[in-house]
């Protein structure tokens, strides 16, 4: 009947849109992608038009994440058949080898891509990912630095490098990477806030003051960033409690911390409205802020 047909294809559209949104947001919700994608591929392939190829790619990567080699293999075969000799498909074949922990074979696969196309950034990044997977952080960092000398505008790479440095507790170099990102993305509140966290972790009065400034900047860019708000509170409180600061600086930071306290309390009140469970969070936050006021004075 006509009605059945309509509800059927609405379902397919919804599933396709879900997959597209997850692709655009770069969501790593692999189990859900496999659930939705596998059904689409198995039952509704004919209704997907040209979208099917990018869906095969997306589902394949998600399938590797879920150890579904059967599904990944199916997707790969379809892509190989449709795009013979494609570098992009070759890279996917390499990723499958990585998932099977066949790192040498995967590396050879990427090397062959790079032989044909030395500027293939995807293959270079996969090689660095292999080093990461093998726990060779120092090498991964070195390769990524070399990569960035050539591809200085690659934000994903700068961010990856900042994370590698943070994991090695090399906060100074992590800060440098985030500075690059902030320069090219001055309106991105997340980079500001992460930079502030790195500075705070580095410690010392100068870094604390810098961290406070960047938490404040992140808040200016997005006044709902709770990490920035908490960060502003913590950094200002620590500066105010520091015996080295003069009375003026102390007074200013007590003010910043008080303002942040207010905002934090407001945010919790707003969030806790109507829910019984959240009352404990609200109370805990109030008490925490009160107890820190005491240590500051």
């Amino acid at each position, binding site marked *: 009947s006509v009605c059945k047909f309509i509800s059927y294809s609405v379902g397919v559209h919804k599933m396709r849109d879900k997959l597209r949104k997850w692709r655009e947001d770069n969501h790593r919700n692999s189990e859900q992608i496999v659930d939705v994608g596998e059904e689409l591929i198995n039952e509704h392939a004919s209704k997907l038009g040209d979208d099917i190829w990018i869906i095969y790619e997306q589902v394949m990567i998600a399938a590797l994440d879920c150890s579904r080699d059967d599904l990944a293999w199916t997707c790969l075969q379809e892509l190989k058949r449709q795009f013979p000799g494609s570098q992009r498909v070759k890279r996917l074949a390499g990723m499958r080898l990585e998932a099977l922990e066949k790192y040498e074979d995967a590396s050879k696969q990427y090397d062959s891509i790079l032989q044909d196309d030395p500027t293939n950034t995807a293959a270079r990044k996969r090689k660095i990912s292999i080093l990461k997977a093998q726990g060779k952080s120092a090498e991964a960092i070195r390769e990524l630095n070399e990569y960035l000398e050539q591809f200085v505008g690659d934000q994903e790479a700068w961010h990856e490098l900042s994370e590698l440095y943070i994991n090695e507790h090399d906060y100074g170099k992590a800060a440098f990477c985030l500075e690059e990102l902030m320069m090219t993305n001055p309106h991105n509140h997340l980079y500001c806030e992460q930079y*502030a966290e790195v500075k705070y972790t580095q410690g010392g009065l100068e870094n604390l003051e810098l961290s406070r400034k960047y938490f404040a900047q992140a808040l200016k860019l997005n006044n709902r960033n*709770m990490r920035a708000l*908490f960060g502003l509170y913590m950094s200002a409180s620590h500066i105010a409690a520091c015996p080295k600061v003069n009375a003026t600086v102390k007074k200013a930071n007590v003010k910043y911390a008080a303002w942040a306290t207010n905002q934090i309390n407001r945010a919790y009140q707003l969030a806790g409205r109507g829910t019984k469970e959240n009352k404990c969070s609200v109370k*805990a936050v109030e008490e925490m802020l009160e107890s820190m006021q005491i240590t500051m004075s």
Partner: protein
Amino acid sequence: MRMSIKLTTQAYCKMLLHAAKYPHCAVNGLLVAEKQKEKKKDSHSTPILCVDCIPLFHGTLALAPMLEVALTLIDTWCKENKYVIAGYYQANERTKDFRPNQVSEKVGARIAENFSEAAMIMVDSTRFTMGCYEPILAIYDHHENKWKCRDCNVDSFDDWCEAQKITSALLEGRSYESLIDFDNHLDDLRNDWTNPEINKSVLHLC
């Protein structure tokens, strides 16, 4: 003689659900125990019972500010509920890497300052299965400024059979999709890091 540590089903299962929710990330969190009323003379016979688990972060664990916020906030919450922070757990990013690192040792030491019998727990992801047939933890004690690994077996659990059965059931049912950690809470304050719904599920299955 060191007091032994025991985990309830709720504590164990929330730890594993946290690790299952983010298989591609490092995760960490805290364990809480009920505050002991008085110090008994032969208190070494009473094990420390970790009754609950508070999942903290996933991804980058080596930054200080949010960890400080979480520790302070959860400490306040503990005081209200007559709990004490008794342990720290961590699962590393790489499956094969289950050794303690600088982060786990630092946070563990910090907790040990307030609770001398604090345990540092590393999750061994190589043995992580849906069936949960064996405990997959390595438990470390703070001893003369070093962390020493002690045996983790079924005796480390209040009721291993129950823990195994319920954790496995919740994994199969994908309960980890609704598990909330402190990171999720910071993303949206309405997300409750005490995980009341999962606690209910655990009770329901008991």
